[in-house]
């Protein structure tokens, strides 16, 4: 019992501590990076249970803001190799369990 309680506490701690967005890799300019990051946070928080709709929202918003064609992958575990336009890639973690990769390739 104690162990499970501790585990729960750990998990809660983990969730609390790891809620912030963590940019792993990005070659975007400062301003664009921050905007994209905030957008990803908003989308993931809005569609916390549905990654697909979150990805859709990010993609559509990015298309509008920075021109098509953007691609978004959101998931808890995946591998990828992509070709992207330079200065148009953001790869970040969010919420302790989500990885978000946003890139442009037209």
């Amino acid at each position, binding site marked *: 019992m104690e162990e499970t309680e501790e585990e729960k506490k750990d998990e809660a701690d983990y969730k609390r501590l790891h809620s912030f967005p963590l940019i792993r890799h990005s070659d975007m300019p400062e301003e664009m990076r921050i905007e994209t990051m905030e957008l990803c946070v908003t989308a993931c928080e809005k569609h916390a249970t549905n990654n697909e709709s979150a990805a859709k929202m990010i993609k559509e918003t990015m298309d509008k803001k920075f021109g098509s064609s953007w691609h978004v992958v959101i998931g*808890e575990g995946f591998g990828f190799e992509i*070709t992207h336009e330079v200065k148009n890639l953001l790869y970040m*973690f969010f919420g302790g369990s989500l990885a978000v990769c946003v890139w442009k390739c037209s």
Partner: protein
Amino acid sequence: MPPKAADKRRQGQGGPSGGKAGKAGKAGHKKKAENDFPETGEDWSTGRAAIKSPDQLDLTENELEKEVIRTLTANNPHIPQNIVRFSFKERAYKLVDNMDQTAIHFTLNGYLIHKDSDEGRRQSIRSSTEAEETPVEEEKAPVEASAEATEEAETKDEESTEDAEAAGEGEGGGEGEGEGEQEAEAAEAEEPPPLKAPERKLANQFNFIERGSTTYRNPLREKGLQTDPAPFETFSENVNQWFIYDAYMEELERMEKAKEKEKAKPVAAKKDDNKTGRRLSYVELPQVDSLTKVAKAAKIAERMVNLNTYDDIAQDFKYFEDASDEFRGQKGTLLPLWKFQYEKTKKLAVTALSWNPKYKDLFAVGYGSYDFMKQGHGMLLLYTLKNPSFPEYSFSSESGVMCLDFHSDHPHLLAVGFYDGNVAIYNLKKASSQPSYRSSAKSGKHTEPVWQVKWQKDDMDNNSNFFSVSSDGRIVSWTLVKNELVHMDVIKLSADETTMQGPEGLQLQTLGSGTSFDFHKKIDYLFLVGTEEGKIYKCSKTYSSQFLDVFEAHHMAVDSISWNPFHLKVFISCSSDWTVKIWDHTIKTPLFVYDLSTAVGDVAWSPYSSTVFAAVTTDGQAHVFDLNINKLEPLCSQLVVTKKKNKTTHVQFNPVYPIIIVGDERGLITCLKLSPNLRKMPKEKKGQEVKKGPEVEIAKLEKLLSLVREPGSKEEQ
């Protein structure tokens, strides 16, 4: 129909008469009107009625009432009606009844041909066939067509002239064409235009000009550019929960470390602040650091270069002793070493010199102007002997610097007096180009140039303080309290305590103007003030209204006054009246008087001997005296400026090395080494007698003084 025509003519002739009848009728009406208004218009109505043209018919009322009918016909009245022609058929003259009634007033040849006219049809047929055959040759076609058309037109012209002749009129082809045109117009209204070549208008060959010109055709140019495709990159990554977790853990760790660092950093920065006082904010740190690092390296490099450049001078400074002095007897020479010059101070005069008490190679130079007509900005430079090419520090000021003094305990504090009466303190530790403290009009600045400033011992609250003397006759004590300069008038120099009688009985107190002063080495309160009038006042800090003593020292302004560094009673003064005088402050007359036959700018005691002093004169010479060797003449008088008319203004002994610096009016500072003959004492002093030195010096001077002193004055000592 001749009879008809005749009728008509008759009717036409009768026309005018009918008109007149009308007029008469009108007159009748007028008469009626006259009856209506008999009073007003009698004269004119009667006058009107009376005038009648002589050929007017007199008609009866009935005749006037009668209606006359006139008809206009198309018959020309001028055409003769009675033309007869002989008819061979009937063998008799017959009346020609069919006369042409047309009168032509105006003809104009049209420039177009109606397409339904013969000519028009011919042209259109020709052009259409040609167009069908060769559409490319369209340009040529009209020309050909027109060429052909002219031929045809000629033929038609002939025809029409024949017609005209037949009609009995000599009007030429024009009329015929005119008729043709009329016909054509009528036809056009009825028929729709032909479909083929509707744009083309058929030209009348006789009244049509085609003009054309060819212009240059601008050549077209093609320009193309291929842009680089947007650069692409590939990026690959694997992610699962473990990676994400690790990444977050790492980040958290990093953040904590950063936090710790941040906590540590401000403290360190504060420490730095306290140490240097330069680093103003945490943000500035890296920049300042890099700059100062470079600056240090640059300074070292600069000094190394200078070391090479001025190597021979440095050797002279350290080791060269003029061997020829042995043969010169008592005389000595000055060996010029470095010259210090700065681009920005070329036109300024050296107004003050002061050696730094701690760093023996560092000295401060004040620049300004002694010509009160040409006052401008001032400069304050600090040179080191290690770098004669460029000043170590430089400060510029709006007003000329007149005097300066280093604080003996805090060698980074430099008190400066300006021509505009202000005093300021520069802190060499601070990077700022502005003085740390500065007096203002509010805080009791002098109203006239400050001629001398001198630091004093810290007061009882350990506040630094200094004194200043100015031409406005005040001697002011300035105290550094926190961030302020607090001033206090110590004494006002009233000239002979006399008052001038101003207008309306106003009592104006004339103030003496102080030009120099010096504090007694031992007795704190005692100081001497030299004035513009040539008097020297012995004053005390404790009596602000009285002088302890007055010396009628010079005839002109006292330029410099200085206590002997060894003998406590002796002081020296120099003046523009060409003299240097040595005094005992207890005796009212000078002990020694030297006439240098030109105005003396500055005088300075040597730090190593009680009997050696140097003076500079405005003729550019430096004079070095040693009373111990020669009481009457200088051991050395040497021209130190290179140019004529250049005046030397100030002289200072280095406190350690046997060198003097001399400033002149062109901003040049010359460093001179005293030859062995000029400094025999220090050589002897070396070794065991160091401690005894001062006493020996005092005794030496005392011995000299006793020779000149009056016997009576001895009691006073």
